[in-house]
Structures are given as structure tokens and as C-alpha cells.
């Protein structure tokens, strides 16, 4: 099966960008929890009103998806489109789990935050983007496994092959704070921070920058035979 990358977006403590920039991506851990993000009004038109109040995980995911869609020439549209979203994550929205649960400890749960509870599901970030950008394809969150974002990339390719979407976005989102490496989750390793997504199409419109991928069994390769071991391998690669 052949699939084309037609866009991408990423955000990280070190900066943000799009696939068509031709630059590499750096999601490496940072001592600072601050994420470099574009201004909301540059990402969402009309505005995504809750964006400013999102947790780090949701904010990073929404920003990277917005950048990727714009890069692929797929801005918000009035009509529903069969575009799907698959993300992967190592820590998902666990930070929000703790934030929500703290709100349940007063008055025996009577003051629990319904809003925070909703965001304890790792897929809410995809639901936010599906609703804002009118994307009606499959939306799934996967556990990150081997190679940055490859689990999501393979699942997105399977859904394209099965004809369940016209376009799929695949990416990884991490919103864990920089202190988690010492908090007993994965001792000795600092979690990555940020989000990266690529847009995948089987039959892209002509005129856009495109990178052709060849997918056989579980292998994903570039047209020139180069093996893709991470979503980051798709960035900074000439189309």
C-alpha cells in the first residue's frame, strides 16, 4: 500500500513547527514545564474557547493537530469530513487524573470537578479536535510502544487500508511534568514533552507537498527504501 504524508505539526518546549518547514523536531525532555505554543488565534479560527484552560496534554495535542491540518491544507470546514485521528502516549492524561482526584477529596466528593473528570480520558483531546475541525473518522488513543509515534502510525495506516477514513492523522502526545521521571513511573527516564502529528492520505490532491510512503507488513519505508523508525524520521525529509 502507498500512502502520502501531506502535512505535519509539532509543539515542544523547544519550539513548534510544521512538516513543510523542512526542519527536524526536538521533543526531548526539558527542565521547564513550559511548552512553546503558537497563539491560539493563529491556530483556531473561529476560536476554540476552552483552549486556554486545557491541561498541558490536551493543549499540546490540539496545537499539533491544528498545525498539521493547516500544513496539509485542511483547515476547519463547515461540512463533516471522514478524517480520523490516532494518537499514542506513554503517560496519557495521568497528570489530569491526579488534578481531578484532588477535587474529590473535599466534602466527600460533593465538590468534584466534572470538567476535570472528562479530561481524565486520554481521547478527549481527539474529541475536541474532531468537534472543532468537523472530523468524523475513527478516533483512537493507543499506548506508545516502540519508536516515537509508530504505534499510532501503523494503526492509522491500517484504518486507511481498511477504507475506514479518507485521511488519517497519526501522532504522539505527552504532557507529563518534568518531575515524573523521579516519581516512580519510569525510573531513570524523563518523559518526552510535546506533541507531533502527521497527515496521511491515500489519494492526496495534487499541488501539495507530498512524501510517498510504502507500507508492507509492519514495515513503513520511504520511496527510496529508507526505513521509518519514528514519526520524527518524516520531518526534515525532502519530499
Amino acid at each position, binding site marked *: 500500500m502507498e500512502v502520502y504524508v501531506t502535512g505535519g505539526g509539532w509543539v515542544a518546549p523547544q519550539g513548534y513547527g510544521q512538516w513543510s518547514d523542512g526542519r527536524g523536531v526536538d521533543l526531548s525532555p526539558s527542565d521547564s514545564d513550559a511548552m512553546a505554543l503558537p497563539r491560539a488565534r493563529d491556530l483556531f479560527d473561529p476560536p476554540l474557547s476552552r483552549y486556554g484552560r486545557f491541561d498541558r496534554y490536551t493543549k499540546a495535542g490540539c496545537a499539533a493537530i491544528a498545525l498539521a491540518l493547516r500544513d496539509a491544507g485542511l483547515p476547519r470546514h463547515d461540512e463533516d469530513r471522514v478524517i480520523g485521528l490516532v494518537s499514542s502516549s506513554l503517560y*496519557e492524561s495521568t497528570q489530569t487524573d491526579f488534578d481531578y482526584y484532588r477535587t*474529590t477529596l473535599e466534602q466527600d466528593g460533593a465538590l*468534584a470537578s466534572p470538567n476535570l*473528570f472528562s479530561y481524565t480520558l486520554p481521547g478527549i483531546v481527539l*474529541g475536541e479536535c474532531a468537534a472543532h475541525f468537523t472530523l468524523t473518522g475513527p*478516533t483512537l488513543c493507543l499506548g506508545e510502544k516502540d519508536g516515537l509515534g509508530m504505534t499510532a502510525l501503523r494503526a492509522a495506516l491500517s484504518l486507511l*487500508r481498511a477504507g475506514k477514513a479518507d485521511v488519517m492523522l497519526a501522532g504522539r502526545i505527552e504532557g507529563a511534568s518534568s518531575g515524573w521521571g523521579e516519581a516512580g513511573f519510569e525510573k531513570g527516564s524523563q518523559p518526552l514533552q510535546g506533541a507531533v502529528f502527521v497527515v496521511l492520505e491515500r489519494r492526496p490532491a495534487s499541488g501539495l507537498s507530498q512524501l510517498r510512503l510504502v507500507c508492507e507488513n509492519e514495515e513503513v519505508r520511504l520511496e527510496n527504501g529508507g526505513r521509518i523508525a519514528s514519526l520524527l524520521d518524516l520531518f526534515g525529509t525532502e519530499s
Partner: protein
Amino acid sequence: MTDARRDACIADAAAVTALGESLDATWTRLRAGESAVAPIRRFGVESLDCRTAACVADLDADPREGENLVCALMRRALDALDPLPAGTFVIWTGVKGDAEFVEAQSGEAPEDRTEYRAPWLPRHYRRWVCRRLGLDPEEGIEINAACASSAAGIALAADMVSSGERESVLVCAADIVSRFTHVGFCALKALSPTVCRPFDARRDGLCLGDGASAVLVATRDVAERRLGAPPVRIAGWGLANDANHITGPARDGRGLKAAIGSALDQAGCAPDEIEAYCAHGTGTVYNDAMELTAVEALFGDRRFPIFSVKGAIGHTLGAAGAIEAAISARALRDGVVPPTGGLDEPEERGRGRVSNASQDFAGHRILTTNSGFGGVNAALILERRL
């Protein structure tokens, strides 16, 4: 990724619910119209408006094994399976498995639960399942699609088998009634303060339930050898998003209609070839109304049996889809759908469709769907031919 399409079938299924320690026991008590919903004793609910759930009565973790309650529940389902084919790929689809960890870290769990203070994230459960079954812990993935997680897992498992990528895939899920989830759903005003009554005119919310399920999806050859009988085939599946709201379903049922439509297309069957429907049927006003809207849009005025198990076993979150797929396979085998627990007076559009008594049906295709937060919808069409 090959394109050799093969039949993907249910080769085995196990389930543990508050109604029964096994799929057989759950099925028998469902058909008898019993309910496992009872006052919660697992954690304090005195200050909450909603105080019932369907909890497995004697559920207890084994701290010597480093297990928590989710593991204890899942272990019971796994123990019911015969040895699995070598190379079986595992998909974990539990949704809130870290609840006990978060509660313990927040100082709410009993002191003697310090052994549980390990971060049970989805990958930890999937590896634990693999090790317990003697499978490679590196072979598998974890999927979260909210309350449609295990239905989505079965869909992807079917695709892996039918595409030739895998010979057998085990879809596992377990979720428990935790303080974390119960208080959260209570805060959302989604829980029933009275009785969970799916599709009832007076329905006022859902109740949660403990549930674990393991569904083995495999090639027809593997399934026939394992069962010694014609297996149930996963004839079609669909996944779609409402693109509407993160917690409320689209009132026009657009996402559910799209998911069912995709499954019908793949199964190559017309809507009138679906003879029974295991609905998500949470018992909330908006979910059940949305499902009936989708039913009317796709199936017209036609009356055929529709049921929900959530009034009897509670909403088992990530495990719901797998449990309901296993129950739907039993319904196909026996030609009968169970009563909808809690149902008293069906809402107008449910009349002639849902019932508080068992309903016979003569067909060989059943639809089962799940919907969840984030706008997710999953549909499976199961088919049994003798």
C-alpha cells in the same frame, strides 16, 4: 500490511460481571431478568446522591502478587480461557486502570493497600496479561476509545486477522467501580439516583459495574478447531466520531449512524438484514434518545429486538464492548435476546423494540454498538451461519 481478506471469527470469550463469575453464569442470570445493582460498600458514598452500582461481591486483590482489584477481576476472566494459540497478539482496552493508583497516591485507599502503589497504566496491564498467559509481553497494544474501547479493540483485531497480519488476537479489558469513576460520573450528573432503566420513559441515568472480558478473535480455521462448532464471524465493523461535543452525544446520532453504516457496508448487508441489536443503552436521557434516533434513521419503523445489559450489570466502561459482544454471540447461538434490566415503561420510540422480557429472534446477524466521551462510536456486526 497484506490485503488477503479472511474471515475473522470469535474463537473464544470469557466474561466476569457482578451477575456471574463466567459468561455462562452472566448469560443465564441476564436471561432470567436478574440485576446485580446494589448499594455500594467498596467506598463511602454517604454524601453523594447516587449510591448504587453492580460490584462483584467477593472481589479482592492478592497483594503478594502486586495485584490490584482490576487485576483480580481480569485474572478471573483469563483463567476461564483454554490455552491460547502461540503468537496470540494482545490488545488491552481497559479505560481507568490507574484509578486505584491515583486513589492510593492521594491517601484515600486503606493503609494496607500500600502494595498497590505501583503505577498500573495500560501498558502495565497488557504486559501483565501477556506474562500470565505465557505470551511475549512485547507483542500487543493498548487502545483507549472511552466506553467504546473494547468494541474498537475487537474491530482492530478483526482487521488484523482478516488482513492476514495476525492469526489470533486476544482483546482484554477490565474496569472496576472505583471511587474515582463513581464520584466523577456523579459530578457529571450522569448517574441514576434511583434505578438504571435503559430506554425507559422515566430513565434518569446510568449505574457503574465491575466487568472483565477476554475475546479471542481468530481465523475461521482456528476458531472452528477451538470451538468444534461453526463460529460467530465479525462480518463488519465501523468507527466514527460525532464531531459534536466531548461528553454529550450528537442528538441526531450522526456518529453512531456513520459507524453502523460503515459496518453494514463491510458486511455487505442491508439494514433489514440486521435482526437484533445490543445497544449501548446506558440509561441516560441523551444517550438512549440518540440511539433510538439512529435506529429510526437507519432501520425506519421496523420493529426488531433491541436490548441493553447495563440495567443488570452496570456500565463496565472499557469492558462494556467486549462483554456485550460476547453476550451478543450467545444471543445469536440461542436465538434470543435477554430482557433489558430496569426497564418498566419503554419510551415511545422504544415500544415494540425493547422489553423487560426475553425476545426471540430467528435471524443470524446481530448488531452491537458502543459510544463514549470524546464523540467515539463503534459498531460490530456479528454473524452466525450453520
